[in-house]
């Protein structure tokens, strides 16, 4: 799904801050959506997306069960060589199962659903786990404007649109529940033009119906191919996962501290000559 991943994240990098003309109603609608997404502990929905890039079209269908802060059961099937996948995170581990290969990978969970979002390539999932990211829409070229209605799976949604540079167009569809029901992104021109349409239908927020999916295990014959650990599940001074380290991909706070010999050293001193620095906290006292 690498191709999809690129497109889904284009929106984050394409955001520019050309003098935005704020539309009060549009801003208020986005506020309500951020609040509703933040307050909703669980959402399940059918998912469909279509990505058109040049002459290529990739269609994906699936089902989402997402539960804050990092629990998910996502099933996908689609064209473009990405057949039948299951992404399952129970808060202790995340499994990514590929039906075509009868294989799955295993990761420790990201505290705020980050690895679910990366695996799922879905802005809708990203918004559910990190509603604040919607604020980035405000910085888009034209600012946010309500441009009309759009019916998605029988639900009448309001269209919130922003126009970026190079006639890039971003639309998000917000339902009467104030939740996100779909996204349209039109990015680039000519051969590089990409159109992404994704929709959530049958959106439900009641917990009971989702429990079966959240108890999923991979098929007995499936093979574990790779174990990825982002964070130790145990060890240290009884610290448990989820006890609140800084989020992944956030900017590490700057520091400048004396070494034992008295010279000062900053984070930049360390990261400049290196690709990766391990900062190891100890306490011998």
């Amino acid at each position, binding site marked *: 799904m690498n191709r999809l991943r690129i497109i889904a994240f284009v929106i984050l990098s394409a955001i520019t801050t050309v003098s935005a003309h704020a539309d009060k109603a549009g801003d208020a609608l986005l506020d309500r959506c951020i609040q509703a997404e933040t307050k909703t502990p669980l959402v399940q929905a059918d998912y469909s997306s279509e990505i058109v890039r040049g002459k290529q079209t990739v269609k994906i269908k699936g089902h989402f069960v997402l539960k804050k802060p990092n629990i998910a059961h996502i099933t996908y099937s689609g064209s473009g060589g990405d057949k039948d996948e299951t992404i399952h995170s129970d808060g202790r581990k995340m499994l990514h199962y590929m039906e075509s290969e009868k294989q799955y990978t295993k990761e*420790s969970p990201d505290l705020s659903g980050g690895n679910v979002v990366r695996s799922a390539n879905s802005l809708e999932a990203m918004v559910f786990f990190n509603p604040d990211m919607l604020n980035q829409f405000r910085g888009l070229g034209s600012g946010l404007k309500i441009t009309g209605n759009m019916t998605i799976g029988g639900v009448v949604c309001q269209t919130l649109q922003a126009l970026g540079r190079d006639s890039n167009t971003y639309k998000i569809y917000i339902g009467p529940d104030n939740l996100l029901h779909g996204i349209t992104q039109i990015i680039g021109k000519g051969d590089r033009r990409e159109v992404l349409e994704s929709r959530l239908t049958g959106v439900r927020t009641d917990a009971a119906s989702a429990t079966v999916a959240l108890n999923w295990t991979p098929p007995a014959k499936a093979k574990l191919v790779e*174990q*990825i*650990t*982002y*964070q*130790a599940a*145990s*060890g*240290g*001074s*009884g*610290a*448990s*996962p989820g*006890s*609140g*380290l*800084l*989020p*992944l*991909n*956030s*900017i*590490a*706070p*700057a*520091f400048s*501290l*004396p*070494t*034992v010999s*008295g010279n000062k*050293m900053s*984070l*930049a001193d*360390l*990261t*400049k*000559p*290196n*690709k*990766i*620095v*391990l*900062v*190891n*906290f*100890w*306490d*011998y*006292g």
Partner: protein
Amino acid sequence: MLAEFKGKGFDIVAVDIGDDAATITKFWKEKDLNLRVLMDSDGKMAEKYKVSGVPCNYLIGNDGKIIARYEGFDEMGIRASLAKAGIK
């Protein structure tokens, strides 16, 4: 581990929370460890990094972003993250 990856774009720095230079030097000498140690005497850096127990490790990329973090020392996890970043 440092010896294995040093010079390949990877470095380790230890941050000692709340000890003075003499204690730290003594400890490292006893353990015969050769690591760069920064002194976070007032614990402010640990607070900024929300460290609630030691050992606690952060992997930071040269863009300043947090690549991974671990409560405890997860060598397998760190190795996996380094491999992902192309450091072998």
